[in-house]
């Protein structure tokens, strides 16, 4: 128990990922859903870094850099769309976002 | 145990106390310097030449009533000052006050990046303070502040890249040692970067002429309008701690830190009598004085002008500086 192996990190990562999944599936506020997605990305990152450490191979860390870059892009575009949507419909409730055009 | 826990803890305690005390005296210094610039005397009543003002002011702030507005978001309202002070103090962890291990808490290989990332957390204190106050002026101010801090952070980070290129390391101690090895302060190799960082530092610490987030005459105090007492003094501490840390980092990166002038000129070796940390402190004071001098002299920029300078002036120059540094680095 006191020795921390990669499995520990993997379990932590899985738990965090599940929290993110629950957030996406249960919450209706799209901003919180975005944040839950960020949680999931972080869970993946923890996994990648842990394995990079285990395998003494930096490729995992390289991947994390890309994931962070993509997360930044996702947040920018996603929140941009959200703002544009909010301006027209005055809602951030995902249940009300059921039209493809307005 | 002694090496890994006790000594670092002792260092941290000493450092924190030193910062807090120096902040109070820095406020006094600022009042005095500005007063002299304006042909006044400044505080004169408490103690000889008003020296004890530095002690009385914090006591006053602590004893004052701490008001929380009824409609404020209580949790964030309390959290915001802490979020703004903690990063300012944490940033000191990577600031070496001398080449010897005794003089710094930690010399990590990503020291400069750590400094940048920690100061970027400080923006939360300001945004959340404005939001949690549930009041219009603080909200406007916090929107201004966050836009300003993020923009100038980009400019400063990009500028520092050219310094990193020159030194080839991210460690603070390493950068100073690289200056010793190169035999010249980077302020002379990278004068453009130095100027950019100074401007960025003014903007990141919300000082005149970039003090829009707290512009008293426009926004009645800005993001801390609704704060009083101890929580207000935390913001105060954070601002001044930021000024000190940014002065220290500028001194380390561009003015050779604890190195004497012309560190490789043998003829000036007699200057080594003065210990390194005194050199560094002297340089820090020089920058602090510069901050105060500017405050006494310049008016305030407008919001759109500030953003224009940040995005259309500083960032392109910083990028060009990186390119030029890279080319020179490859050629030499």
């Amino acid at each position, binding site marked *: 128990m006191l020795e921390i192996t990669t499995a520990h990190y993997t379990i932590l990562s899985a738990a965090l990922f599940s929290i993110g999944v629950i957030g996406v599936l249960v919450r209706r506020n799209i901003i919180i859903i975005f944040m839950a997605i960020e949680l999931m990305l972080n869970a993946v990152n923890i996994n990648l870094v842990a394995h990079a450490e285990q395998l003494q191979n930096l490729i995992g860390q390289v991947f994390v850099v890309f994931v962070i870059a993509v997360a930044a892009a996702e947040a920018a575009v996603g929140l941009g769309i959200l703002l544009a949507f909010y301006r027209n419909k005055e809602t951030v409730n995902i249940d009300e976002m059921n039209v493809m055009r307005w | 145990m002694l090496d890994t826990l006790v000594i670092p803890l002792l260092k941290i305690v000493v450092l924190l106390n030193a910062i807090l005390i120096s902040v109070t005296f820095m406020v006094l210094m600022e009042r005095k310097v500005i007063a002299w610039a304006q*042909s006044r005397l400044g505080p004169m009543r408490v103690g000889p030449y008003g020296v004890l003002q530095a002690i009385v002011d914090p006591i006053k702030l602590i004893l004052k009533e701490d008001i929380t507005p009824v409609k404020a978001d209580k949790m964030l309202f309390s959290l915001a000052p802490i979020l703004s002070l903690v990063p300012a103090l944490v940033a000191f962890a990577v600031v070496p006050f001398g080449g010897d291990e005794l003089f710094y808490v930690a010399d990590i290989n990503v020291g400069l990046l750590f400094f940048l990332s920690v100061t970027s957390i400080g923006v939360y204190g300001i945004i959340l303070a404005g939001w949690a106050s549930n009041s219009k002026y603080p909200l406007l101010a916090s929107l201004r502040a966050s836009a300003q801090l993020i923009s100038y952070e980009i400019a400063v980070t990009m500028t520092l890249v050219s310094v990193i290129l020159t030194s080839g390391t991210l460690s603070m101690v390493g950068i100073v040692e690289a200056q010793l090895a190169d035999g010249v302060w980077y302020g002379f190799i990278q004068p453009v970067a130095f100027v950019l960082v100074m401007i960025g530092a003014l903007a990141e610490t919300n000082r005149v002429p970039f003090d829009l987030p707290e512009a008293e005459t426009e926004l009645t105090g800005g993001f801390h309008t609704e704060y009083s007492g101890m929580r207000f003094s935390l913001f105060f501490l954070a601002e001044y701690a930021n000024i000190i840390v940014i002065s220290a980092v500028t001194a380390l990166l561009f003015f050779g830190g604890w190195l004497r002038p012309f560190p490789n000129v043998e003829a000036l070796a007699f200057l080594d009598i003065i210990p390194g940390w005194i050199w560094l402190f002297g340089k820090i004071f020089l920058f602090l004085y510069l901050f105060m001098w500017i405050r006494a002299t310049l008016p305030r920029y407008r919001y759109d002008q500030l953003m224009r300078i940040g995005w259309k002036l500083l960032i392109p120059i910083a990028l060009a500086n990186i390119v030029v540094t890279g080319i020179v680095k490859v050629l030499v």
Partner: protein
Amino acid sequence: MATQSAPIFDTDELVINMGPQHPSTHGVLRLVLKLDGERVVDCDTVMGYVHRGIEKLSENRDWTQIILLTDRMDYVAAATNNLGYCETVEKLLEVEVPRRARYIRTILAELQRIGSHCLWLGTHAMDIGAMTVLLYAFRERELVLDLFEEYCGARLTYNSMRIGGLPLDIPSGWDQKVRAFCDVMETKLPEYEELLTNNRIWLERTRGVGVISGPDATALGLCGPPLRGSGVYRDVRKDEPYAAYDEFDFEVPLGTQGDTYDRYLIRLEEFRQSIRIIRQALDGLPEGPIMGKVPRLLKPKAGETYHAIESPKGELGYFIVSDGRATNPYRLRVRPPSFCNLQGLKPLIVGHLVADVVCLIGTIDIVLGEVDR
């Protein structure tokens, strides 16, 4: 109360109340600003917080007692208020004021202009963030106040004139002190200019901000430096000379762009012109009485008149109706320059940013005591 004040703006956009307690509204002025982001979309000016009914009070005061009331209008330029009122009553009474009194009045009015402009410069620069100019300007204003104190014993509300002349002759040696002050002031003006005139930030903050064209400014009834800043040649001292201004040589600075920077330059130049006028007046100060032949009981014949002078803020007019019977005016109306200039605020600030609002309040140079009376 039955009357419900209708909402001035719908609340969808950010509406902020600037004032009545705000550090840079120069008194208890309240601006209801409707903002789109930081840009001002609409503005409503609310005033009257220091309305003391000076016009109504005057209807029940003796002619001489009203001089005291005029002190309280533009309290940073009390002497010009006194002057305007006394001249109007003198016009109504058809009293000749001795030449010496007119000269001293001119000196006082110009000193007052310097004092008022000092206060304007300091607060205007402070609003834009230049803290040091405030203290420099107040340092010089203090000298003006000292001179006034020596002349009439008061530092703010002077009550320094009487109908028909002056209450006091100048103290001995006072003229030398005024001369010395003029010399000091001349050396201090470059200090202000050094801090501001060519300062890049100052230029960016004031150039092209609050531009108003000459015809617009005229139609809006702006007066004083804001009107001259738009290039309209209008100075009561030249157009309708009063006191002893027709005997002096001075220039009226005019702006070209009509922006805040022009108004700033104009006021700075007015410092110099005021010094020039004071010097001329001191050189030619005639001997003679300081009080004209005024009846013991002031009772102007029935009639009405309007008389304006150039106060530091602009055209300060008094419209007085006498019914020919009482020892008080039947109606006294003050045409306050700050009031008219404040009306020009809304066209100036709409479309600008919040930061410019304080800059523009500073540039029109209002005193709320005069706006509200």
